[in-house]
């Protein structure tokens, strides 16, 4: 009897802790970085590694004044405005005409039991309106479309929510991916973007995980469109780990966890990165 009561108590406790977990994770990391780099404002981590290097940040500001990738954004805008065969548009399909909403993604879709990224939401619009979905990692279509569509949420603060047991499970799966050491070189994401943040790996300054989800896609060297999932793959390759195809469940769940850690931070799509 006593044992039973105890077991019941344990269950209630576990459930209570589980609901608070994402916010605990977030606060713990915010505090970690406040101590690790007391001289850097957490809000400035939206600039990634540039937050640690004032000279590089100045260079960034210079490039951002005249983005060399303006043509790609214009093409994205063209795709955004082009009506589907049935005459409807992305703006008709997404909440609030697609403005100030990108920071709500990834979101957990209870009905489908899975994480929905912003790119998936764009493709869902296509399918709902009788069009074929774009290939997830096609920079020339979904890549530029998402670059423009996300820019309609510039200035929004990331606002990813984890509500309910199934959502929490997806979040936890992403968290495991982030902290698990993988590959021949035995790195985790945290090796480089928590423990190693602010250090140099060879010539490259490592960015912190906070703020990493606020500004996708990025334009590498100002030219090459790189999606967040492309980045996951490059980083897995650095560990000599086999990457997934863009849009895999593992990547979607990782993006869910990873984006939650940027909650409250200001969005800006797209940006220049080295």
């Amino acid at each position, binding site marked *: 009897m006593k044992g039973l009561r105890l077991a019941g108590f344990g269950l209630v406790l576990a459930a209570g802790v589980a609901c608070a977990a994402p916010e605990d994770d977030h606060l713990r990391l915010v505090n970690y970085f406040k101590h690790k780099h007391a001289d850097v404002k957490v809000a400035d981590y939206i600039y990634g590694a540039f937050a640690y290097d004032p000279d590089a940040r100045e260079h960034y500001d210079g490039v951002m004044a005249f983005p060399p990738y303006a043509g790609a954004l214009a093409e994205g805008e063209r795709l955004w405005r082009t009506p589907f065969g049935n005459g409807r548009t992305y703006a008709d399909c997404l909440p609030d005409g697609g403005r100030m909403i990108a920071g709500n993604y990834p979101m957990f879709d209870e009905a489908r039991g899975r994480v929905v990224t912003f790119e998936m939401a764009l493709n869902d619009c296509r399918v709902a309106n009788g069009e074929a979905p774009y290939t997830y990692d096609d920079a020339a279509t979904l890549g530029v479309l998402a670059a423009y569509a996300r820019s309609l949420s510039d200035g929004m603060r990331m606002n990813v929510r984890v509500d309910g047991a199934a959502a929490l499970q997806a979040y936890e799966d992403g968290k495991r991916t982030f902290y698990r050491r993988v590959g*021949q*070189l035995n*790195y985790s994401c945290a090796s480089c973007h928590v423990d*190693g943040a602010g*250090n*140099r*790996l*060879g*010539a490259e300054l490592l960015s912190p995980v906070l703020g990493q989800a606020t500004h996708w896609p990025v334009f590498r060297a100002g030219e090459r469109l790189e999606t967040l999932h492309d980045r996951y793959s490059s980083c897995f390759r650095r560990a000599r780990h086999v990457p997934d195809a863009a849009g895999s469940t593992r990547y979607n769940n990782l993006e869910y966890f990873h984006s939650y850690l940027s909650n409250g931070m200001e969005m800006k799509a797209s940006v220049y990165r080295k």
Partner: protein
Amino acid sequence: MVKIRTLSGCTACIAAVTLSAPLLAGEAESGKAIAYDSRRGDCLACHAMPTLPDAGPAGNSGPPLIAMTARFPDKQALRAKLWDATASNPDTMMPPYGKHKVLTADEIDKVLDFIYGL
């Protein structure tokens, strides 16, 4: 007589080839070359080597490799660090070069000799 001489000449020839191949490779693959190679040791990604003028641009995730004999009087402890750094520090970022077969035992010994001179 002539036949035998040709035969033995040939054997010597093959022996010379098989002997010289690993030797040449060994020369090209000095401990330093393995340590510097970004696809092999890639030690510079994380460690500066302040006594070597050609060792840049190095990362700073790990401590600078300097005065190794003083800091590791026991060379085997240093080898153990290269073999599996997580054994002495589970949280280390340093790859377990031997345990995960990033380098062979022979390559690790060469890198060990190289850094022991730093």
